[in-house]
């Protein structure tokens, strides 16, 4: 287990036995810090960020045959983060990310460079202001798999945007690419999902779904038909929507949800 704690301008590392990590300046002029991580053994990495006021670039390299889980939680700050992942042959990366920041702008680039590399992303956010998440997923090798799940609940002054683009080059056969994005919009503000698939190969399984709205009538009716009030029904559905698939930060996410939906 490795932990990266980012608070203000400070970046602290705890227990880095399974990874090689270096911290530096990506750009002095733009005040951008960088964190370079090479994952050399199967491991879990925790990233906790709070009240961050620097721009940060992550470079994460998952070596051949390595399995890594990254659990990330960011809160209380304006974030401009960029992530670049490089996955080698037979590597397997799972990322669970909880966002409860003020303003968040992220760019995530996933390079599936080795055959049979797998990247699973599960992002949950409670958007209260401006949040924009861009994903570029490059299937640069055969039989690579990407599952990108973005779920957000938009509240208060929230304006949430997910842009996900997947690329499969010609000759990269046997790839499996899945993008799912859903925003529960509890405001009158506009939210955006742009799902893009750029596929130049026939032997590919590709799925995408994008949904912005509230919970379905059927879901609400079913719960209310057991006597549960509309308010509690929406609370239950929101909790379920956000908690699904979250493991490491489940309890923290429950606490966050309880703050907004008592």
């Amino acid at each position, binding site marked *: 287990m490795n932990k990266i704690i980012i608070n203000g301008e400070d970046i602290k590392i705890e227990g880095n036995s399974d990874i090689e990590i270096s911290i530096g300046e990506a750009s002095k002029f733009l005040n951008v810090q960088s964190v370079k991580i090479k994952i050399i053994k199967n491991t879990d990495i925790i990233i906790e960020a709070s009240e961050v006021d620097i721009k940060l670039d992550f470079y994460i390299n998952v070596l051949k045959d390595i399995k890594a889980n990254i659990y990330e939680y960011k809160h209380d700050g304006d974030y401009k983060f960029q992530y670049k992942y490089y996955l080698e042959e037979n590597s397997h990366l799972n990322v669970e990310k909880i966002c409860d920041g003020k303003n968040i702008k992220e760019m995530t680039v996933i390079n599936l460079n080795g055959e049979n590399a797998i990247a699973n992303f599960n992002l949950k956010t409670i958007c209260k202001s401006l949040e924009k998440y861009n994903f570029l997923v490059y299937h640069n090798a055969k039989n690579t798999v990407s599952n990108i799940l973005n779920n957000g609940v938009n509240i208060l002054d929230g304006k949430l945007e997910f842009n996900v683009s997947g690329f499969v080059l010609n000759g990269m056969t046997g790839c499996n690419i899945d993008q799912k994005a859903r925003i529960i919009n509890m405001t009158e503000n506009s939210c955006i999902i742009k799902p893009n698939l750029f596929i130049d190969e026939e032997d590919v399984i590709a799925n995408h779904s994008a949904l912005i709205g509230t919970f*379905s*009538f*059927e*879901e609400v*009716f*079913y*719960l*209310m*038909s*057991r*006597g*549960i*009030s*509309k308010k*509690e*029904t929406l609370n*239950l*559905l929101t*909790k*379920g*929507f*956000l*908690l*699904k698939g979250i493991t490491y930060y489940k309890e923290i996410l429950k606490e966050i949800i309880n703050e907004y939906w008592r």
Partner: protein
Amino acid sequence: MNILKIENLTVEIGGKTILKDFNLEIKSGEIHAIMGPNGTGKSTLTKVIMGDTNYKIIKGKIIYNGKVINKMPVNERAKLGIFLGMQMPVAIEGVSNADFLRSALRTKEGDNFKLLSFIKEVEELTKKLHMDSEMIHRGINDGFSGGERKKNEILQMNILKPNIVLLDEIDSGLDVDSLKLVGESVMDYYKDKKPAVLLVTHYQRLLDYIKPDFIHIMKDGHIVLSGDKSLALKIEKEGYDKLVGDIYE
């Protein structure tokens, strides 16, 4: 004694009339079975009684113990003790059966809710219904087969203990053994609590386990023929066309 009365109920959806001057009265301790060909309004009837706002009541009344409940929200109807076991219960990912049932029972029982009793009862019922004990921790109907969903409806009925039980094609999707389990479980509940039961079914086989006092055949949005259990056997033997045809001739 609880009485559910439907008076001259006319209902439409999307400009199409589904129920026309429908009349029925059900009392505690009575089992009514509604049968009839597809598209005659059987499922609509149960949904409208439960308070599905997709349907527009044009005229008529739904009366529970003397009170008109036409405009009552669905959760308030449930609190009165009306329960609908649905034909195709929706799957809701992320919301566990346990959280859902606990919320529903806590709403019903308020301060009298006892967590340990709830857990014990759920354990007993999952065993009785031959359900996977882990299902309680899974999302509501998430990944459930058709049969498991129906059993989950019956489990909820047993937990919530309603006065008026509406069962919409609770037999569809069930294999022979599951049908027997579900049928017997409904009858056990009936013998214990004596609710009013209104069940919608296409087939006589469910009535081998749930013994109705009255059978009604619906066509074109209202009841065209009523009788005792022998009517179900007659339907099985002769079919709706002949029976309902006889009425109009």
